[in-house]
């Protein structure tokens, strides 16, 4: 059955006693008191007596080296019900966002592409890329490497692809790797035409490192595309969205997956992600050429549903 976050002690490192208050059951969070802070590039800070680097894990502050294992724990827990929860939480809207995201890439329009979908464990984006290339452009040579740090999520993706025509073909591959440090032997530089990361970058410890790796593996002329939850500017929509996020979503996590804390983390991590202009600047600082620093036509990002999700793009020139 689904494991709750509190049952993941064997996976928690030796400093479990320090962590357990942070991951104890029934996290009480009053979202009305939560002050969204301006997050730094990686969200990391030096703090503590020994100058240990810390970062955010949702609204909690944890040592930087432990975030990865905590996030791994969250996704180990949610992997088997991830797609169901996505549908329940977004009322199916995530499908529209992902369709829009892939449509912009036009895979196969000008010949086969080598794509890499990072943090793409369950294969949502990869399947859409391959289907779009096949259906619209009769392209059966475009390939996608699905990369995820979490083995459980990759297993779910592998299982899903076994039901499709792409299973056991060169068009799809599943690889376990850390988006911040992809081994060069497996992911050589200047290899891929398209790098996608959908609803995954906010879970990474160091966003600049992810962007640096993305720049490295892309070919000159390659496109970076990121779909992520983002900031809502409209105050009325923002209030409704906050109420829904902090009241309904963790409750759905409890009812459908028996794991409130993991879904609480997922909601909090959205609030800690940099706002659109800041993230666009980070993409530009990583070396990508982006559109103008505004939203919309010719801009560095495009808001979906008022900013609930946002698509950021950049090109390696």
């Amino acid at each position, binding site marked *: 059955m689904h494991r709750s976050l509190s049952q993941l002690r064997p996976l928690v490192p030796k400093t479990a006693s320090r962590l357990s208050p942070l991951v104890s059951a029934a996290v009480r969070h009053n979202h009305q008191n939560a002050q969204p802070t301006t997050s730094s590039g990686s969200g990391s800070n030096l703090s503590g007596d020994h100058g240990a680097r810390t970062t955010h894990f949702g609204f909690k502050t944890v040592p930087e080296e432990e975030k990865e294992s905590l996030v791994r724990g969250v996704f180990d827990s949610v992997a088997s019900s991830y797609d169901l929860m996505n549908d329940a939480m977004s009322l199916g809207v995530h499908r529209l966002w992902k369709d829009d995201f892939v449509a*912009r*890439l*036009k*895979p196969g*329009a*000008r010949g086969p*592409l080598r794509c890499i979908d990072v943090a793409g464990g369950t294969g949502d984006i990869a399947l859409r890329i391959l289907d779009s290339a096949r259906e619209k452009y009769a392209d059966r040579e475009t390939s996608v490497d699905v990369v995820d740090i979490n083995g459980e999520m990759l297993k779910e993706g592998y299982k899903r692809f076994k039901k499709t025509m792409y299973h056991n073909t060169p068009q799809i591959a599943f690889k376990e790797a850390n988006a911040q440090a992809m081994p060069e032997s497996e992911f050589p530089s200047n290899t891929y*035409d*398209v790098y996608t990361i959908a609803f995954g970058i906010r879970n990474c410890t160091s966003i600049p490192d992810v962007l640096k790796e993305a720049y490295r593996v892309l070919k*000159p*002329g*390659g*496109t970076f*595309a990121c779909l992520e939850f983002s900031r809502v500017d409209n105050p009325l929509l923002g209030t409704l969205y906050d109420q829904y996020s902090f009241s309904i979503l963790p409750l759905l996590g409890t009812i459908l997956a028996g794991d409130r804390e993991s879904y609480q983390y997922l909601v909090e991590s959205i609030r800690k992600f940099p706002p659109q202009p800041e993230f666009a600047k980070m993409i530009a600082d990583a070396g990508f*050429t*982006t*559109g*103008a620093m505004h939203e919309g*036509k*010719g*801009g560095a990002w495009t808001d979906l549903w008022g900013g609930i999700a946002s698509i950021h*793009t*950049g*090109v390696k*020139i």
Partner: protein
Amino acid sequence: MPRNQLLRLAIPLVRTHGFSREALARSVLSLPVPHQQPLSDAAVLSLFGQGDDARRVLIEGWLDQAREEMKIAQVPAVQGPLSVRDILASRLKSNEPVLQHLPEAFALLASPASGLPPLDPLPGLKHVSKIADEACYIAGDVSVGPAWFRRRATVAAAYGAAELHQLTSPNTAYEFLAHALNAAQKVDSTISEVELFGRYVWRSWAGIIKSSGVLP
């Protein structure tokens, strides 16, 4: 690399590829270290926008560059400061290499992004207004007040008519420009004389009404 640099590299490609996404895609082939292949559709979308939005960016970029080139325009036969006519003539000359693509470009600018209104005159008006303003500034026009606006409005109208004429009859465009500017000058001086006369009439009536004691 800023996207504006790619836009500048795409502008010389308009002669051969028109105001198209293809020209934008091929801009990377003109880099100091050129790419092996043009940019993908996704890359062009990412940098310049979707569909015709990217083409509009290229058209606006080309128009901006043509306006910049007005500042360094030189007419070999003329020494000293250039007249408005010479500056506008050099601007018409910069249209010649891309003349076959201009009708579609202007039509695209006039087409609204959303369905209504069916034709958007604002981009065309902005285009001729910017050229008129630039030309008057370069020529050293010192008009102030309403005369400033009148001068630019008449020059813009003359240039707009000449440019439309050039699209259908390029050989007679320069003569047409000269006639249009003369007519605009006459209109300008007529309006200023009417304005002056009107002011005199108004003052006269104001004086008569005041002296009649009607007003308290």
